[in-house]
């Protein structure tokens, strides 16, 4: 896949992480062309929706971390 697409997603999430955590902690979001286009409870449902709609380029599906998720990885 295009490196620029990966890096764009990486930069977008870095820039918007605080907003994402504030609004969507524990939920799954699909990010496409600089916008959140889908929000749901599971990666499974969002990917199925994305593939059914034929959204391209492939969105980044991201489970927005909760406070306890960070605590968990810091303990690993």
């Amino acid at each position, binding site marked *: 896949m295009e*490196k620029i697409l*990966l*890096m764009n997603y990486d930069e977008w999430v870095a820039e918007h992480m605080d907003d994402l955590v504030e609004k969507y902690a524990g939920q799954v979001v699909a990010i496409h062309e600089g916008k959140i286009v889908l929000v749901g409870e599971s*990666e499974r449902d969002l990917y199925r929706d994305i593939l059914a709609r034929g959204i391209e380029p*492939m969105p*980044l599906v991201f*489970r927005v971390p909760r*406070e306890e998720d960070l605590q968990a990885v810091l303990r690993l």
Partner: protein
Amino acid sequence: MQTIFQYKTFRGRPAPLITVGVRLEEKWYPVEVYVDSGAAYSILRAQIAEGVGFDYRKGEVIFAQVGDGSFIPVYLHDIEIQLGVKQFVGKVGFSEKLGVGFNLLGRMSIFEQFTICFMENDRVISFEWSDVRT
């Protein structure tokens, strides 16, 4: 060939979360992973595989120990991974029991292929590919 990622700041705390690509069922998917030098395997949430129609249960099953000391089933596959511009085949596991909210990028197939530097003061992580090791 070096790729540098900024740490992502989570409520004021920086974390090495990066975006990589994985190829499943002939399509590339960007996924967010936590770079975890303490994890032997890269593990993605099984819901990703279920959503894209990838039968992850066909993989070799292993039991990986997680932070609380328990063991979780992980189904391992050889999968194409993209990190920066570099595409390569590596071991990736899927688990429905991954308790932590993050997908994990562990050592196997990753730390063997790249020289990885966590620069905590600069809040960046660099990956340098070495063809010597391929």
